[in-house]
């Protein structure tokens, strides 16, 4: 009788130890994930700021070249994320104060991907819109971002309607005065557009 009680007590202790070990492992995993996310956020710090500059766009299918003005703001998003706002102005004969000028404004938001060393694009939260899983084979774009030293990479991948793919690779490279940009748009293996440019860090008023 005493031996059965002792055996049952040993089992309880063992069970407690196993549960404690599991809880500790879970805490370590969560802590590790947070450290990784914190590290990713820290890697982004040097990029935060406002940048202005210009770029040359080459359409490699037609040979056309255009000049553009750039205005980029890189800032934190939520706790460990990234926000990029950029305005592009297509110039006419090098001028932006004449008819025919075009202006685009875009924003991209990224948050760390679970268990990975990169960030995934997230939409602006909208309580009234039903969220749906991304299905790349049906043409849903996939966009992600990562930092590699002084280079911030943003990639977009999409399976086109006819099954070919489009890949956009955007690199923003820190320099002494600001950030250089390098962009390629690739359709089914062919580079169809290339953008190269330089920017300088600007004081925000």
């Amino acid at each position, binding site marked *: 009788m005493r031996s059965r009680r002792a055996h049952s007590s040993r089992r309880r202790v063992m069970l407690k130890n196993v549960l404690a070990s599991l809880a500790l492992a879970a805490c370590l995993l969560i802590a590790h994930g947070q450290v990784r996310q914190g590290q990713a956020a820290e890697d982004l710090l040097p990029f935060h700021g406002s940048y202005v500059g210009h770029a040359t766009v080459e359409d490699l299918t037609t040979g056309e070249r255009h000049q553009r003005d750039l205005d980029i703001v890189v800032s934190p998003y939520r706790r460990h994320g990234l926000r990029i706002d950029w305005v592009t102005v297509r110039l006419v004969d090098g001028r932006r104060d004449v008819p025919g000028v075009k202006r685009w404004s875009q924003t991209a938001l990224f948050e760390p991907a679970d268990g990975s060393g*990169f960030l995934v694009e997230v939409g602006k939260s909208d309580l009234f819109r039903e969220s749906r899983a991304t299905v*790349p*084979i049906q043409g849903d774009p996939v966009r992600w971002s990562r930092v590699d030293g002084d280079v911030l990479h943003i990639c977009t991948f999409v399976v086109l309607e006819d099954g070919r*793919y489009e890949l956009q690779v955007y690199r923003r490279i820190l320099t002494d005065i600001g950030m250089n940009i390098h962009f390629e748009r690739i359709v089914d*293996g062919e580079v169809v557009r290339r953008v190269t440019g330089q920017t300088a860090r600007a004081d925000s008023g």
Partner: protein
Amino acid sequence: MMRPIFLLVAALLAWPGHTLLAADPSSIETFIGRWKVSEITSAAGDAAPDALSVRIEADADGFRMSWHDLGTSGDGGLGSEDVDARFLPSGRAGVFEYAPKSSSLLERMFASPATGNPLDGETLLWARIDGPVLAVYSMKIDPKGGFGLDHYSWTRIEDRLHLSFSKRTEDLGSATVIQGQLVKEGE
């Protein structure tokens, strides 16, 4: 009395070759068979001729194919893994999605098309047929955010298949790894 133009159309339809006129540009028909290498025209690594072999057969509304994964080697050799994959229509004309089943280890790495998302660490595998071209793609993103995109293209030219395999990574850009000519076995 029938006009000559109607007679011409009727003659074309009666001729066995009329299937060419009505050929479905997304049909697998022209690629079906067991194909073996007749010539390797360029290769970036050591490629055994067998590594370029491919078997293609019709399967339900789609097709099934077996080939060697030319993009998996880490030791400079090519074609180190066998893939046997089934593709079914995706709902987009000429586009076929991978239909998963569990056989080889490599195949289990490819994702279910319904949920397949490279951002979740899954490899996206899909195929496209456009007339004489059958292309198969795989796309994956590694845990650090780097990507790898493999692109196989088999082009039917007369009685041969011209294979071109290229891979693209962010760091290395694009490289055509291997090109070759295939002929149908038994012909």
